[in-house]
Each structure stands twice: as structure tokens, then as C-alpha cells.
């Protein structure tokens, strides 16, 4: 294994994909869950959803999809491979690669949620460039969710506690993110121009950067046996 950080990062990200895609039903399940949630929202609110309800439902679906996607225990490698990786790789790179993997998955999920929402719950609240701004907000939020939940599920899978612990640790931390996102979304849907609400996205980006940095610094201590 080369000692170059970028090569290690690339290797680990593709490795995460390879491990996760070994069981295809896992990935398919995530997308199916998101679709089913959107369909449930459609049955509940129908095409009559007002802008506020449209907005609230979109973020809640994204949040639950994120928990479903990221908060499950990590697919483990065989013990031999794990100990090999441990001796050759820098642990900080490992968590960054995991984050990158989940960021990709979550971006795709956000895209799916957005189009499913447009399909089922109507597009009358999304005129013109508004839809792009809203999608951008969904993507930023998805990235923030992914990085935060990756770190927390790293902690809880080390604790051997799995999904429920990640949910307990994650929910309070999700609240500030979802608050910012819903505020951004409702401002976008009520016609505020993008430039005036972009600071919300800036804050989400800052939060994501902070979480990634913390993960990079702290993960070596989690990794150790």
C-alpha cells in the first residue's frame, strides 16, 4: 500500500463501495425506503400539500433516509483484511473515506427524494430557479447528515450497540441541522431570492467541515484496540 494520503483515500473509498455493494439488497433497500417514505407522504398529504407541508415533509423524509442509510452498523471486513488495513493505513484517512462514501450515497438519495417529491407531491411550489436552490439545499443537508452520522455510527459500532445508539446520539445533533435546512427551504419556497438565504448553506458547509475535521482528529482514538 503506498503511503500517499490521496491514494489511500481513493483506495478506501472504492473499498467501501466494494464492501457495501457486495450485498446489493442493502443499497436497493435504502432507495426503496426513501421512495416508500415519499409515497407514504403522498398518501398522507396528497397533491394538496401547502408549501410549508411540502417543505417539512421533504426534510423529514431526507432525515429518516439518512438515519436508515448511515446509522446502520458498518459492513465489516474479514478480520484478516482489517488487521492488514490497520497496519498499513492512516486511521484519519479511513474515516474521511467512509464519509466520502456516505456523502455520495446521501447525495444520490437526496436527488431521489427530490425527484420523487416532485413526481408525487407536485411541483407547484417549485417555480423556475427555486427548484435548483431547493435541490442544492437538500444536497448540502445530505452531506452534513452523512458526515455527522458517519462519525456517530463509528462511535456506536465501536461500542457494539448498533442502530439504536446512533439514533440516540444522532437525533439531538440532527436538530440544529434540520432547523437550518427547514428555514432555508421555507425561505426558498416562499420566494426569497437565493442570495439572501445562501448564508444557511454556508453555515451547513462550515458545520460539515468542522465535523470532518473532528472526525479526522478523533478517529485514531476510536480505531485503536
Amino acid at each position: 500500500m503506498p503511503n500517499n494520503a490521496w491514494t489511500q483515500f481513493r483506495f478506501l473509498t472504492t473499498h467501501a463501495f466494494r464492501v457495501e455493494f457486495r450485498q446489493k439488497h442493502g443499497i436497493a433497500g435504502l432507495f426503496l425506503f426513501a421512495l416508500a417514505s415519499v409515497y407514504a407522504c403522498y398518501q398522507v398529504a396528497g397533491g394538496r400539500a401547502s408549501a410549508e407541508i411540502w417543505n417539512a415533509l421533504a426534510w423529514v423524509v431526507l432525515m429518516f433516509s439518512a438515519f436508515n442509510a448511515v446509522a446502520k452498523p458498518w459492513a465489516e471486513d474479514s478480520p484478516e483484511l482489517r488487521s492488514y488495513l490497520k497496519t498499513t493505513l492512516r486511521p484519519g484517512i479511513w474515516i474521511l473515506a467512509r464519509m466520502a462514501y456516505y456523502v455520495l450515497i446521501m447525495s444520490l438519495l437526496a436527488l431521489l427524494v427530490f425527484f420523487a417529491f416532485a413526481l408525487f407531491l407536485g411541483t407547484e411550489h417549485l417555480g423556475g430557479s427555486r427548484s435548483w436552490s431547493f435541490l442544492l439545499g437538500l444536497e448540502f443537508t445530505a452531506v452534513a447528515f452523512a458526515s455527522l452520522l458517519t462519525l456517530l455510527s463509528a462511535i456506536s459500532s465501536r461500542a457494539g450497540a448498533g442502530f439504536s445508539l446512533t439514533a440516540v446520539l444522532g437525533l439531538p445533533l440532527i436538530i440544529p441541522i434540520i432547523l437550518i435546512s427547514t428555514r432555508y427551504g421555507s425561505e426558498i419556497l416562499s420566494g426569497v431570492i437565493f442570495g439572501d438565504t445562501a448564508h444557511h448553506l454556508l453555515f451547513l458547509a462550515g458545520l460539515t467541515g468542522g465535523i470532518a475535521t473532528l472526525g479526522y482528529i478523533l478517529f485514531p482514538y476510536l480505531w485503536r484496540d
Partner: protein
Amino acid sequence: MKNTFWKALGVLLLLYVFSMTLLVPLGPGLLEFQDKGKVQHSDIVGRSLPVYEVIGFGTHWDENSDSLGIFVKSKGQLAALEIFEITDETHALVGLDLPYSIPSKSWNVLVNHPIDGTLLLENALFLSDRFVDASIELPTPAVQEFGSNLPFHFPYQPQIVETIRNLMLHVPLWFTMFLLMGIGFVASIGQLSNNRNMEADMRAFASVRVGMWFGVLGLATGSFWARFTWGAWWVDDPQLNGALVTVLVYAGYLVLRNAVDDERLRARLAAVYNLFAFVILVILLMVLPRFSESLHPGKGGNPGFNSYDLDDALRMVFYPAVIGWMLLGTWMYLLTLRMTRINRKLDLLP
């Protein structure tokens, strides 16, 4: 002896704080300036003037009534109001004598009195039906200004009024929580740098446990304060959301500790999570509220208390309150720490 001294000092300081908080009276202020919707003939100017009622809070207008002066002020220009009747120590009927052309529509009301000093009610009067001419110069009235002559009192703040006493509970409780969580943060760094010794882990655990109590009390006192000043037990405000999230995050710390059985793994995971939690605390309670306040000025609807403008009377109680609560918190932390140590030793006994 030295060991008991600061603990007794903490309790005594808090006794002092509670006595002052509950016994010091509140200073005077102005509550309202009401249009009575009628006119009254003035014997001085010989015309009929619209009548307004000035309502004060804790004022002494029935004493030295001759020296009471009531004015309106706008853009640096002052106009005296004619006092028709002083109903009692807090109510007075006045006549407004302003020309049709005025420098501004919005006026502050000033009341000057030998006991109360000068009291101000901002934007109390709005005259929508007059002509605005910025260049107009009103005749300057003769003013004899009095300083206040009051016993030791807390300042009157609009909306907050008597609930200003909660300042001595609410804010020091949060400060103490910050202190304890800070101790936990330092201990967690220590735990990560040396994971063989469980001492730092026990310190972090004890400080978070005690800090949680202070956080919950801070939330509770804040909720009471919100009820009486903002009208609801909970309002959607960045600082409040941040406070709740912080307490929940630290509750997560305690849950995480319970989830792990192996002592050394638990110490390491808890330390990692605690560092994370403290960063969240700093962001949510210190950085984010300022950031969002500056984006949405006036958020929280708390005009009189924006910068915690402490006056000397409040300071005389507030600083001892901070020190007293912190000493009490530290004492609780040390007790909890010793208890945790004993529990661990008992667990390790064969």
C-alpha cells in the same frame, strides 16, 4: 480548614445573593403613555389641549408634585407637557401642546422628578395627523433637571420588570454548566493522551453528571423567564434551541457510557464523544446565537436587555452569584468524583 473554607464561602455567597435578589426593590420606570381621546381647556395657554395619561411604575409623583416635569422629545427638541392632574403616585393626566408643524412624528416621553430622576419611554407618542417639517425649531422650555434620589435598587427594564431577579439564577447556572463541561473537556483530552489510567475518565464522568443538573436548571429557569417576558414557556429562538440540543447531547454521553461494558473502551469512546459534545456546546451556545442575532436583529423580542446591560446594583449581586454557583458546582463535582472512585474500587474488589 482551608478545605472547608471555600465551600462555606460558596454557600454564604449564595445566601447573600438570594437575600439581595429577593429583597432589593426595583427602581421606577414608565409603563405607558395613553391617548385619553378627549381635550381639556388649559388655563395657562388658553386653548383646549388633547389629554394623555402617563402611567409610571414605582414612581413617587404624589411627593414634591410641584417639581414633576413631563416632556416629549424628538430629534433633540424638547417640549413640555402641561400637567392637568396628578391622580396618584403613578398616574398623571397631561395636555399635549405642540404646533401643527413638528420636526418628527415619533416622540419619546421623558419624566423628571426629584426622587425618581429622569425616566424615559421610547417612541411612546406617535402623531400621525400632523405635518412634518424637519427644519422647524420648537421653543426650548425651561428645565430644572433632577438626579435620582432613591435607595439601593435594581434597574427597571421594560418587559422584564420584576423578573430581572432571575438574572441571578439563570445566567450563573449556565456559566457553572460551562465551567463543569470545560473540566470534562480537559479531562477527556487527558484520558485520550493516557488511556491506561481511569482517573481522567472518572473526572469527565463526574463533571458531566453534575453539569447536566446545572444545564437542566438553566433550562427550567429560562423557561420561567420566557413565560413572563415573552409570553410562552418555549419560544423558537436560536439560543433556546442550542441550549436544549446541548443538554440532549450530554444526555447522549451518559447513554453511551451505559452502552459499553469494557472499562477501557468505554473510557476512550466516552472521551471522544465528550470532546465532540463540548465543541457542539461552544458552537451552539456561544458562536451560533451571536451569528444569527446579527443576521436577524431584534430576534428574541428583548429590547431592554440586549447586551446584558448590567448596572452597578446588578453587578453587586451578579458577580457574587456567579462565584457562589461555581463554588457550589465545584463542590458537587468533587463529591461526585469521590463517589465515582469509591464505586469503581468496590467494583474491582474481589
